[in-house]
């Protein structure tokens, strides 16, 4: 794959309007021929004794955008955490079932988690900038993954900050603490930080929740541009957004105190002709 985000932005790209372009669109595998990248089978997840997910099975298709929707507490975040094995870090969290990533067993005990998490990036629901400067927040993961040339670092940083529409707002204070940014700015910084690593799969936990419509649109555009080259799983409470950008959608619900997958399919089908009545109620009842 061509180093996509490392292309220094062409000079004419610096105007605010198109500051978040990603360069020319490249053809990825088309979305209409689904090729399974991640396959989840019978995934269950417990916190202590309390079940949080029960028997989830679904396939994530390469290059596609999959939206996960469902009420609060139904286990969407837990599901994402299981995919990049962040659940390993929660002391009383137990996962059972199978997850395969291109035939690699993601639940293998001797898996190299660093590579896994580089390949499967995650953006959290609550943005957590590190207690460092804005610049260091983005440089840190890059340096750790072997990119040390100053010019390359700077170019990447500018590119990803432009991609999320933050560059103009912070370009003259890159060395000030990231924790002094506003809520939406922190959210976008964290998205940029994850993008900089060019993961194969991007898990996004409500990336637009703290964003105003303008920034939200920027991020949405960005996600659509990534489609085909990145595989994206996005948790969103904004059903309209899910409808607009996703190729596939999954609907979670809490039944018997545990989250389960009610319906999974093409986005259009889920929103327009849901087979399950709960899904129908949820996608129609919303005032989103």
């Amino acid at each position, binding site marked *: 794959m061509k180093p996509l985000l490392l292309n220094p932005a062409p000079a004419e790209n610096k105007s605010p309007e198109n500051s978040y372009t990603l360069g020319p669109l490249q053809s990825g595998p088309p979305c209409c021929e689904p090729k399974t990248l991640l396959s989840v089978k019978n995934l269950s997840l417990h916190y202590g004794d309390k079940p949080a997910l029960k028997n989830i099975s679904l396939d994530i298709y390469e290059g596609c955008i999959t939206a996960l929707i469902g009420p609060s507490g139904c286990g969407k975040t837990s599901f994402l955490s299981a995919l*990049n094995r*962040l659940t390993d*870090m929660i002391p009383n969290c137990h996962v059972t079932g199978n997850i395969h990533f291109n035939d690699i067993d993601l639940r293998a005990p001797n898996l190299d*988690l*660093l*590579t*896994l*998490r*580089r390949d499967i*990036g*995650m953006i*959290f629901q*609550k943005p*957590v900038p*590190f*207690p*460092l*400067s804005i610049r*260091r927040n983005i440089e*840190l*993961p890059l340096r*750790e*993954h072997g990119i040390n040339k100053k010019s390359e670092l700077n170019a990447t940083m500018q590119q990803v900050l432009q991609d999320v529409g933050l560059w103009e707002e912070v370009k003259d204070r890159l*060395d*000030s*603490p990231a924790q002094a940014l506003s809520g939406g700015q922190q959210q976008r910084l*964290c998205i940029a*930080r*994850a993008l900089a*690593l060019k993961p194969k799969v991007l898990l996004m936990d409500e990336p637009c929740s703290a964003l105003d419509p303008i920034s939200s649109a920027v991020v949405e555009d960005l996600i659509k541009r990534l489609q085909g080259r990145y595989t994206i799983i996005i948790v969103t409470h904004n059903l309209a957004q899910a409808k607009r950008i996703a190729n596939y959608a999954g609907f979670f619900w809490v039944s018997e105190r545990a989250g389960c997958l009610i319906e999974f399919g093409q986005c259009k089908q889920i929103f327009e002709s849901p087979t399950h009545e709960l899904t129908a109620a949820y996608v129609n009842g919303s005032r989103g």
Partner: protein
Amino acid sequence: MTLLRHNILSLSKTDQQLSLLLRLCALISALLVALILGFLLSESLPILQRVSILNFMNDPSWHPVQGLYNITPMLSATLLSTLGALLLATPLGIASALFSRYYAPPLLAAWYRRLIELLAGIPSVVYGLWGLTTLAPLVAQIHPPGVSLLTAILVLALMILPTVALTVDAALLAVPAAYHSSAAALGLSRWATIRSVIIPAAHSGIRSGIMLAAGRAIGETMAVLMVAGNVVQHPHSLFDSVRTLTANIALEMSYAMGDHRVALFVSGLALMLMILLLVSMSELFKRKEVYV
């Protein structure tokens, strides 16, 4: 960042009473320090009226009975042994804390932490005896006499290691868990997370630990007295026997009289000045802490 201190004017009634109480406590602490300083000063004053400060720096040697008061060899011994111990104990202590917090399996970590707490409670006499009977002969095999700056550094390092380890451990524990998961999600290795995120976040706790350890190393008496050799000289190598200021006070205070006694108080004062210097230096160090 201390956030609350900016609205001092609006305190609830409990808060006002409490503020008063705390102020009182603080005043008492301050007063006690002042008292101790005053005590040292008043005891030192008689000699400072007769003997110039310069004598303490320039006299040919420390033979207080003959009126020779050069304390610089002991100053350098104190400084060197403290620095040496800190150089050893700081990385080891931080490593200990990191090990028990992030690398050891939970059960081992719990036991290990208990071990370190035990180490923190071993009295200095025991350290001293152990150093004298076990460590010093070993050092003597490399280079006599065995009781030496090196032995003192080793014993001191062992004594202050738990101070560093426990303080750093507490600071690490206070780092928000979200930093760990965010760093992990970026594929940062554990070490990268620790080095670039956790240690900066726990910075002030680490600094406190080092300050406390330095204080303890400078002030330690019994153990150093037993293992340092107590010869008043500027050490030329790690194997030279040295006498620290505290050992000097402990060795000679019991029989010192007249000017000799006063000279010992002056060396106590010198010690305090050294600590003041150290504290100010660490403040400078803190100022440099920026977001880079």
